[in-house]
């Protein structure tokens, strides 16, 4: 039987040794013949209680990994060890530990058990920025985390959010709650195949059995059809978006953007609008591109203008609006120009009052990391065009999953709304003034999350019940911000930023369209 190898990782002085000292003395821990290999030499002294201690300097590991593996193998054969602990160096990639364990001298002898990330809350944010991808990779590889220096539930939550930027769903325990740690430690890992099948099998069974019973009150068939319709339409564009975004990330250097891209918003805005026109993609594609632009150092106001203008200004959208409204050129122009004006204004509000807190969801920590896409394993070592293309594919794939999950949720919500009919919206505003009708229509645009190339037809079908101004509100605001966009943005950006952007876009679109309608407007 292979010996389980439990690993403690984290920065130097994060408290790894202290954690081991405390944990191994825990009375509830089973008695076992333990060997502890320590690849880190911090300030704390290892007590060595209830185990045999083998310090291995990092120098030795770097210089002769084969020798280290053989030495470990010899120790394991010599003694009747039944549990191994490793204190892993905070600056060494976790992948190096995995290849160490896969070394011929050790393979078959031991297998990876629990990987515990130990962190000191006070030091973590300050350290992470200066240290390359190894710490991020360690955070991403651990099974659970233990944090010290956190005293409140709120503090714990904040810290958990920080780590979850790298390791979604990670559970974090406070160092003083030893019972929780022990429980987490002795829990069994469920097979990944089971974890995948557990939600799927009952859902499929339920669908097959319960579907006929649900209709008519729940239009399940219609929800499924609408969901698939929007998904099939969105996925190719999402793929285009993540591919372009990955090209920007991997082939365009930050320095290039720094030198070539106009810093001043007055020049940057036209560039953003032009870029939006040249990329005939809808909002599913512009959000991933927005993410990479921001990360590459494009000024935030310009990037925001790019993201909000792209779905309105692209030629396909213009054409479909033109046809849907019976060749009404003025209406189409009104939509495009109001969209451009609103996008520029939204961008400018972010130039006037730049966000004070970091806009990415992992806080300062995630913002400084090279990439959080899960392809950290050898991101730094990739050189040459072949390697870069491989990285591009992997990066695009990771981003597809990342943004895709929010797309799926958003589309599902919108499919449910559409299946139940939007009649409620229409009746909510009958007889109300322009402002109320506009608000209702814009809210509907937000909820329905239609693709910008198809929303014109839907807007046309409302023409009898709503004034042209309200339809414009729907067509200008809807593609900029809707449920699926908000969800896709929150995959990377802080709630605060997404909320500000949404409210700001709503207010500005409302204002521009309302003023336009007030001073003449356009007729159908």
């Amino acid at each position, binding site marked *: 039987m292979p010996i389980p190898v439990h690993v403690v990782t984290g920065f130097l002085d994060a408290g790894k040794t202290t954690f081991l000292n405390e944990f191994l003395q825990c009375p509830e821990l089973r008695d076992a013949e333990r060997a502890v290999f320590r690849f880190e030499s911090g300030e704390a002294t290892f007590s060595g209680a209830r185990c045999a201690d083998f310090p291995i300097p990092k120098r030795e590991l770097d210089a002769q990994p084969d020798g280290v593996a053989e030495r470990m193998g010899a120790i394991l054969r010599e003694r009747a060890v039944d549990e191994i602990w490793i204190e892993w160096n905070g600056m060494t990639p*976790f992948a190096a530990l995995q290849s160490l364990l896969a070394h011929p001298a050790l393979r078959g002898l031991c297998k990876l058990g629990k990987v515990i990330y130990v962190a000191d809350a006070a030091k973590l944010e300050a350290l992470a920025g200066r240290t390359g991808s190894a710490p991020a990779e360690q955070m991403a590889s651990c099974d659970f985390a233990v944090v010290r220096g956190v005293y409140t539930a709120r503090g714990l939550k904040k810290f958990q959010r920080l780590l979850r930027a790298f*390791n979604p769903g990670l559970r974090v325990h406070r160092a003083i709650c030893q019972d929780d740690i022990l429980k987490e430690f002795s829990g069994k890992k469920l097979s990944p195949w089971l974890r995948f099948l557990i939600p799927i099998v009952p859902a499929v069974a339920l669908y097959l059995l319960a579907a006929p019973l649900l209709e008519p009150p729940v239009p399940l068939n219609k929800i499924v059809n609408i969901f698939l319709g929007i998904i099939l339409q969105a996925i*190719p564009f999402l793929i285009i978006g993540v591919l372009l975004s990955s090209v920007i990330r991997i082939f365009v250097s930050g320095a290039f953007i720094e030198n070539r891209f106009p810093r001043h918003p007055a020049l940057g805005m036209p560039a953003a609008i032009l870029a939006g026109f040249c990329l005939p993609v809808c909002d599913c594609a512009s959000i991933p591109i927005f993410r990479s632009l921001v990360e590459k150092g494009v000024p935030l106001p310009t990037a925001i203008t790019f993201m909000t203008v792209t779905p309105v200004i692209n030629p396909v959208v213009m054409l479909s609006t*033109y046809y849907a409204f019976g*060749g009404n050129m003025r209406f189409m122009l009104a939509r495009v120009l109001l969209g451009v004006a609103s996008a520029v204004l939204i961008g400018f509000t972010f130039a006037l009052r730049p966000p004070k807190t970091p806009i990415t969801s992992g806080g300062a920590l995630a913002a400084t990391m090279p990439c959080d896409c899960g392809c950290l394993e050898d991101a730094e070592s990739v050189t040459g065009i072949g390697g870069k293309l491989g990285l591009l594919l992997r990066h695009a794939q990771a981003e597809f999953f990342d943004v895709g999950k929010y797309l799926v949720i958003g589309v599902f919500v919108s499919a449910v709304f*559409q299946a139940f009919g939007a009649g409620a919206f229409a*009746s909510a505003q009958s007889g109300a003034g322009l402002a109320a009708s506009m608000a209702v229509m814009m809210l509907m645009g937000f909820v329905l999350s239609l693709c910008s190339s198809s929303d014109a037809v839907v807007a046309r079908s409302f023409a009898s019940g709503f004034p042209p101004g309200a339809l414009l509100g729907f067509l200008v605001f809807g593609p900029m911000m809707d449920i699926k966009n908000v969800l896709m943005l929150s995959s990377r950006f802080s709630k605060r930023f997404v909320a500000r952007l949404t409210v700001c876009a709503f207010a500005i679109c409302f204002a521009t369209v309302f003023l336009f309608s007030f001073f003449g407007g356009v007729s159908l």
Partner: protein
Amino acid sequence: MTAFARARALNPQVCLELLCHASFSVLLFSLTHSGKYLTYVTPRMAPYLYFAAAVMLLWAGADAFRLFRPRNRVRVAHCLVPAIPILLLLLPHSPLSASDVGYGYAGGSAFAGPGAQSAAQAAAREAEGDLEFGEPQDEITATDASSGAFIEVEDDAFYSWLNELYMNLDTYVGCQISVTGFVFKDPETLAADEFVPARLGMTCCVADLVPYGLVCKYAAAGELAPDTWVKVRGVVRKGEYAGFEEPQIEVTSVEPAEPVEGYIYPFEY
């Protein structure tokens, strides 16, 4: 050492991702190739769907190189992103029919028929010169069609005929016509003695289906059950809707018909 012993453990996450990408790719390809995609999106999407299938296949291929790379924290939840659409595509469901389309969308006026259509078609004409709608032109050869030429609107030429009638109404006034559609009645836009033998038209995807068709004058319109399929025979006449001249049908007979499968795709520019 045997090859088996040298082989390292399979990385379940990469394996699952590979399976998802590969099956989604195959499914997208067969859906597009077989034409089944038309129940969800318009023909315009075909190249995009092939493109998506190709990228998915590429991703699956790239995954194959990483199958044996070890990974401690195995994630699976993200694989639901392709898995959910794959499962829903495979699980039984039927295309939407007349009764599924909520006219409630616009409080009853979702009917994109008359006004919107004629104007849209005029625009299409202007924008792109003479549109080629082969079939109607081929069938109607005589310009003296008014003498009782018979227009049999084939199911797959429904929209071309609709368009042709709007464009060259004067040519066809007085012609005999027969057309199959479901009975669409909308108290807000149609009178009590009017109905439309309609087909569902898709602009972008199945979420935006609206009925298309010609308004029929029929005294017994009230007796027709909405959403049932009928074959209408009658004479083309010039009617008016919202200030626009439009072709309508003076009904001579209405008989039950088999439902016609498939949607029409009016905005295939």
